[in-house]
């Protein structure tokens, strides 16, 4: 993983600003570190040389008092800089996260909905990106310092004492070199043990989740010994990995401190033989650890910050994933009989066609009941009619006009769809019903709710239509959610400018008998006199529908039997 992903710089302008600010702060901080070392060595050397604070007059003591005062000034300046840099970094992080998040959201919500793991995307866009805070506020500034400080310190030490400069110049490049070598070795070993660690780590969760099942089979107490055994295995495997993983930090620590020790001894002897003066020696001694400090900090913060980088890379991967696109015409919305002419749908990356050579007419103003087993393409058929997916081959016409030529948004305005598992929004009941018709008057909402058998549900809510339903409509049961979705469809169908198309996907699957009965009554009302498609596995629906309903059966992968019932 690269410490600085160029895509991050390109995507989020805040990152570029942040780098500039971090570099500026780094340069100022480097200057202050050098200044402080110089002041301290000067004060100690002068004081040792006999220039006290209270000496009557004389430039030496005035100089000393000034230098001590300057140390206080440096302290205040460093504190201000530390605060400012951290605050600026957190601000940049907030902006950069927002930029990445909104790019991600705009990208995945563009076009037609696609099959994605929405839960994972939500986590990525919130907690995942939050890991960038550490990267911005702790890692990047330290990375800047790790480049600047050693170079500046080396240059200054070289000016003061070239032998010490050689010691530092030789050891500093050794650190990244050894770390890379150890890191490569560790990587190989860690990768080998990762699968084992994962499995062992997941065992406890597995056992705790399965506790009721274990209890049922009278194994709960017996399993305790296994918990212990597996945790011990986990410990041994982890320690095996850590012994190697910690080597990298070990090399860094030993090289950095030993180098400082060498410099101290070396400069001590040169001082002893009179080759340097005390002030220079102290100056070099104070500066030497500063050359290694940022490198150690970068090493210590590497892992935490890489989580943020990993999250950013996930965002880039999602951005590279093309949005779902359909052929979007701009023509007027046609009406009349819907016909599918030898339509085939093949999803990329799947062996089998989702729908193979389907030829079907959906007569206007009548209901078609589409049954068939899972995988026969029932949901794909609804996807085609919703214009979520285009036929890979064949075409769909409405009253003889090609559906693909029509404006998809305009077409959907005439479609009332109730999915198998409708999504309710964290909004009021009325807001959820108004999803497609935000301007519908309250009277129309009430009527739609009534038609959808929602009256008793609304009456039972604390604020009626103004009750907020919570995330994913958590306040309601599955059957009640289904009825809210039906009300949504009623409102759309009633207000549709053209003769609406009603699409229903497994309206009563997973519902208990009471809710199923209510939904069936509402569906009967909704499809009456309208062009409707009900997709279900359950042929018993035929008894519920108007007499002129058409029955079509999909067999994986093609239509086997179709025709008019009765």
């Amino acid at each position, binding site marked *: 993983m690269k410490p600085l992903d160029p895509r991050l710089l390109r995507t989020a302008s805040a990152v570029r600003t942040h780098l500039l600010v971090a570099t500026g702060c780094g340069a100022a901080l480097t200057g202050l570190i050098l200044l402080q070392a110089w002041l301290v060595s000067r004060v100690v050397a002068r004081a040792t040389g006999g220039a006290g604070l209270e000496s009557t007059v004389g430039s030496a003591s005035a100089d000393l008092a000034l230098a001590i005062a300057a140390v206080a000034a440096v302290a205040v300046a460093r504190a201000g800089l530390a605060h400012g840099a951290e605050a600026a970094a957190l601000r940049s992080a907030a902006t950069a996260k927002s930029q990445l998040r909104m790019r991600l959201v705009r990208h995945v919500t563009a076009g037609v909905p696609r099959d994605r793991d929405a839960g994972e995307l939500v986590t990525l866009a919130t907690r995942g990106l939050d890991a960038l805070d550490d990267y911005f506020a702790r890692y990047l500034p330290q990375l800047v310092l790790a480049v600047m400080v050693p170079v500046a310190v080396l240059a200054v030490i070289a000016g003061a004492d070239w032998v010490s400069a050689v010691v530092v110049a030789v050891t500093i490049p050794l650190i990244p070199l050894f770390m890379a070598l150890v890191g490569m070795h560790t990587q190989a070993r860690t990768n080998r043990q990762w699968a084992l660690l994962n499995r062992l780590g997941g065992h406890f969760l597995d056992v705790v989740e399965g506790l009721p099942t274990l209890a049922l089979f009278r194994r709960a107490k017996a399993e305790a010994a296994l918990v212990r055994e597996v945790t011990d295995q986990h410990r041994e495997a982890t320690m095996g990995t850590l012994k190697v993983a910690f080597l990298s930090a070990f090399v860094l620590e030993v090289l950095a401190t030993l180098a400082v020790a060498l410099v101290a001894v070396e400069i001590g002897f040169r001082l*002893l033989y009179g080759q340097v003066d005390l002030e220079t020696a102290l100056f070099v001694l104070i500066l030497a650890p500063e050359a290694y400090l940022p490198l150690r900090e970068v090493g210590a913060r590497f892992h935490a910050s890489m989580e943020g980088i990993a999250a950013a890379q996930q965002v880039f991967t999602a951005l590279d994933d093309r949005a779902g696109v359909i052929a979007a015409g701009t023509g007027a919305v046609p009406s009349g009989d819907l016909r599918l002419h030898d339509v085939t749908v093949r999803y990329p990356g799947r062996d089998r066609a989702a729908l193979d050579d389907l030829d079907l007419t959906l007569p206007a103003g009548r209901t078609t009941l589409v049954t068939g087993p899972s995988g026969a393409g029932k949901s794909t058929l609804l996807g085609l009619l919703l214009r979520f997916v285009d036929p890979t081959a064949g075409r769909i016409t409405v009253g003889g006009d090609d559906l693909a030529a029509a404006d998809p948004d305009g077409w959907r305005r005439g479609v009332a769809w109730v999915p198998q598992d409708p999504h309710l929004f964290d909004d009021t009941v009325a807001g959820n019903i108004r999803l497609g018709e935000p301007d519908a008057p309250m009277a129309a909402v009430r009527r739609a709710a009534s038609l959808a058998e929602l009256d008793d549900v609304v009456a039972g809510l604390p604020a009626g239509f103004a009750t907020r339903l919570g995330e994913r409509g958590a306040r309601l049961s599955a059957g009640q959610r289904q009825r809210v979705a039906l009300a949504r469809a009623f409102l759309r169908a009633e207000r549709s400018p053209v003769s609406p198309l009603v699409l229903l996907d497994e309206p009563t699957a997973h519902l208990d008998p009471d809710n199923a009965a209510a939904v069936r009554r509402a569906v009967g009302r909704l499809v009456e006199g309208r062009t409707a498609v009900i997709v279900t596995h359950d042929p018993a629906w035929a008894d519920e529908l108007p007499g002129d309903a058409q029955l079509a059966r999909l067999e994986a992968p093609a239509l086997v039997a179709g025709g008019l019932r009765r």
Partner: protein
Amino acid sequence: MNGTAHPDGLVRMLALARPRGGRFALGVVLGAAATAAGVGLLSLAAWLIATAATHPGVTALSVAVVLTRALGVTRGVARYLERLVTHDAALRTLADARDRVYARLAATEPVRRFRSGDLVSRLVSDTDATQDLLVRGLTPPLAALLVGGGVVALSTALLTEGGLLLAAGLVLAGVAVPLLAARAGRGPGRRATVARAELSTALVDALQGAPDLVAYGAMDRAVARVEAADADLTRTARRDARLLGLGAGATALLAGLTLWGSLLLGVAAVTAGRLEPIPLAVLVLTALAAFEIVAPLPAAAARLGAVRASGERLFGVLDTPPQVRPAADEPVPAGPADLRIRDLTVRYDGPLVLDGLDLDVPAGAHVAVVGPSGAGKSTLAAVLFRFQDAEGGAVRLGDADLLHRSPDAVRGVVSGVPQDPHVFDSTVRENLRLARPAATDDELLDVLARVRLDLDLDDPVGIRGSRLSGGMRQRLALARALLTDPALLVLDEPTAHLDPDTRDAVLDDLLDAAVGRATLLITHDLAGLERMDHVYVVRDGRVAEHGTLAELRATDGWLSGRQKGQPSGQPSGLLSDRGALSPATAGR
């Protein structure tokens, strides 16, 4: 956080972790040695150089020279060993904690808590937080206390006021700043949580509700809502950044001012003749290096706060009292027997969930319990599995009253498929042998055939059985129950999460496998009732009507009003989920 009567979450976590005294102390000593080596190196080097400046003989420096080099190596070695020792202690602590948490859970069986998968996974990560307690929570402050004490003692020996100043600086930077930073961070943390919750909800709506939004032309509005929530969160974070940066600034200020104070006091003391030049160098450079000691403390404070929060959540679950009172461990006779439930009443905390339920399952008969959600059907299963005590009534299997036998005694004769049966991340064989550890492969293959599951015993089933389809998981769970050869088989919503095609086939095969065995099928839908000998309709905790399906259809009751439109119960035979392993994630 807000002073409850319960002992503090942190204290209880410590008790749970039962610190591994020896290893933990060794870790602290090693950590202190590593830090001390770093600070000591600079103090010693200062002495070396200041002494060298007086041009003594080489021998006067030789000990210091050797010591300096030794310290240079000590730091790295001590740090490496400290990490190994503390991580080892932490992992042992984790083992202890898991052990104890599991034992408590196994003893109290808070089964109702297990309905929420989120809660269970949080409970596990809260248990795992105990390992942070030692490594990242307690070792840094204790090591800092040791080294800080030593450094202050050294400085005090050199110059009393210098030592006191350093002590003040270290305590402020190591204790006051982390505490104040935590307090200052509370407001921003709360504001960010509120803003993040709104953003998260808006994102869930926009991303998970995408099909509904696009179909109803409302995606633009949803994205606008995400934008507004994001802008709000970003604004809050940017405004609070200054507050959150205070800690870093305060630490830097304290370090710098302590250095300045040391210089001031030191030089004054030298001028007054109370301090030699060499100790001055040592005093000042020690003060310069000493703040390394307190650097890890803010992170440790944050870690301890997180562990305390984990402790409070964890003990919220562990303190759940058992749902079942101790009872006689006298075994219940095995073999076919009639189940007679009379006047059964059950309540959890509020009103009665079962309110005088009477129900019979004659030996060998198949009986269904149907009814609307919340009627108390699953509570009946919980009572039969002995996960839940009854308040009154009797549950007799043959001559034994199950309510007065121990859970294990009852589970020897009553088994079945609970709601959401857990499939363990192991092989088919291990999942089956759970029910009968001594079973031979032939017996296992035989029971797999009875539930019409064509799997290899060595097939891995994946995490939570993710490599199996929903129907296969139910079949495996039933196979497991059949292996215990129970007198009564209880099936609690065995088809709840199956797609309609699979549902009929699975139910049919489950009932085939249970032929001749007393079986109680609890279900919220009305599929497959044709095959049941007797059907009970439970509403509001009591039996509303019962009889054969034909009788119930003929009478004008709850069931006859709802049978219309339900599938015939004939096996569809079109699609079977028996067979080979399916991939872990199937597309829509």
